[in-house]
């Protein structure tokens, strides 16, 4: 199942998942919506992450934790082919979404990102109005229906509507950091993805804005599947159902590779981790 070639060219659009397995429920909550099998990610000849196998359960929050440089963002980006544009980036193994290999030849990465959206660490709204930020993805994806309604729905789902409904034409850059981050979440969910990837979405936010985003994550699991990278272990413990702990290991050639050490139900991982490396990291006994 390994697909060792680099995928950077745009290919004809195909449906990402076969009919009958859409988000709205042929699979019970907790069934894997995505599956990584022996996934390694390379930047040129450097194998940044080695042999990762883990499921992403539907309608759950999956957290990825681990020390800086262990490859969390790399793995996260591999889930929606965000590494494709990086020159030399390459994925081996299998990343599947509803059983379909996301790196198969006939899969269009643009379509992948429409089904599997991403929210970044730093809120990155476009220098446009609040409305246009949310409408942007709808327009380029040619989503039908009344734009106003879709924008309102997305802003409401992102728990931002009440705060911005009177200033939709104002610049998004005039919002606070926490509001900007929720705007980016609204922009992501406007195109109705199934999976939302979040890379340290709260690292620039105060505790109140953080709590809002965390509430939102939990709320969003009604309709979406969420994967979050966080350095805040309490956050992982608060919001996630499963937690994946990654670390960087040095091989015989003294090269560091990211490795998945433990994937567990979150309560288990934080009370009784199976692996000593997990225990040492989460209890702060490193170095």
């Amino acid at each position, binding site marked *: 199942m390994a697909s060792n070639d680099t995928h950077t060219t745009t290919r004809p659009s195909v449906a990402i998942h076969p009919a009958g397995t859409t988000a709205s429920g042929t699979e019970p909550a907790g069934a894997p919506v995505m599956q990584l099998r022996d996934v390694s990610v390379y930047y040129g000849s450097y194998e940044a992450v080695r042999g990762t196998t883990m499921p992403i359960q539907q309608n759950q929050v999956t957290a990825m934790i681990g020390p800086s440089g262990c490859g969390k963002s790399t793995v996260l980006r591999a889930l929606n082919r965000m590494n494709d544009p990086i020159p030399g980036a390459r994925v081996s193994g299998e990343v599947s979404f509803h059983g379909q290999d996301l790196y198969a030849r006939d899969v269009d990465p643009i379509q992948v990102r429409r089904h599997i959206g991403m929210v970044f660490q730093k809120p990155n709204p476009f220098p446009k109005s609040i409305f246009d930020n949310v409408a942007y993805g709808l327009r380029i994806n040619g989503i039908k229906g009344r734009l106003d309604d879709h924008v309102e729905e997305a802003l409401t789902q992102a728990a931002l509507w009440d705060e911005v409904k009177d200033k939709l034409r104002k610049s998004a850059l005039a919002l606070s950091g926490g509001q900007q981050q929720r705007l980016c979440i609204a922009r992501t969910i406007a195109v109705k993805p199934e999976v939302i990837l979040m890379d340290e979405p709260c690292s620039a936010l105060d505790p109140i804005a953080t709590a809002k985003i965390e509430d939102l994550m939990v709320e969003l699991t009604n309709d979406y599947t969420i994967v979050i990278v966080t350095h805040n*272990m*309490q956050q992982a*413990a608060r919001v996630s159902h499963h937690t994946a702990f990654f670390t960087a290991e040095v091989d015989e050639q003294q090269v560091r590779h990211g490795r998945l050490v433990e994937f567990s139900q979150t309560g288990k991982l*934080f*009370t*009784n*981790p199976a692996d000593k490396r*997990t*225990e040492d990291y*989460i*209890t*702060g*006994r490193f170095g």
Partner: protein
Amino acid sequence: MVRDIQDEQLDRLTGVLAAMSREAAAAIRGASAALFDADRAAAEAVVAGDVVLDRYRAEAEAMIPEVLVRHQPVASDLRLVVCALRIAASLERMGDLAVHIAKVVLMRHPVGVVPQQAAAVLSTMADAAARMADKAAVVLATRDQVDATQLGLDDDEVDAAEKRLLSLLVSGWPYGVESAIDLALVARYYERYADHAVNVARQVVFLVTGTIRL
């Protein structure tokens, strides 16, 4: 390093539990000596000494919320904190049960509580209880699971001895109802004491393995 501060606080907590386990063992030895020798001074010492265990328990209970708030412990650190709360409660109760035995002695003094017929079976209980307290103290220090499971065997011995004593008391006990009630109570105090010692060991097993084995 902040991690060192947390370790220091957890070490202090473990130290309090170790001190409590020594106090609880001393209390049951004192109570047994008072019981078998009808020794008023020994009984009074046990009653007076109980405040030490109460203070240690209060100290442990005050430390735990602070550790939780400051360090948000997880994994084995978290289990230690949760278990410490339960262990401190058990050890404090063990002290109380030794006091109950001492109070029976004081109530009957100068008359003794233990007639010859009950001496053997009660001293079996007293020895086993003291041994269990010592083992609980060792297990707390070494966190050795094998030692921890051994406490269960001593506990079986205590339970069997209690049954033997009760059957003596119900079949033509010649010393009257008051004596029978005293002895039944004393036996029950030893039995409860032993159960708490088992609980301490069980908490240590949980602390080490993260799983409760019954």
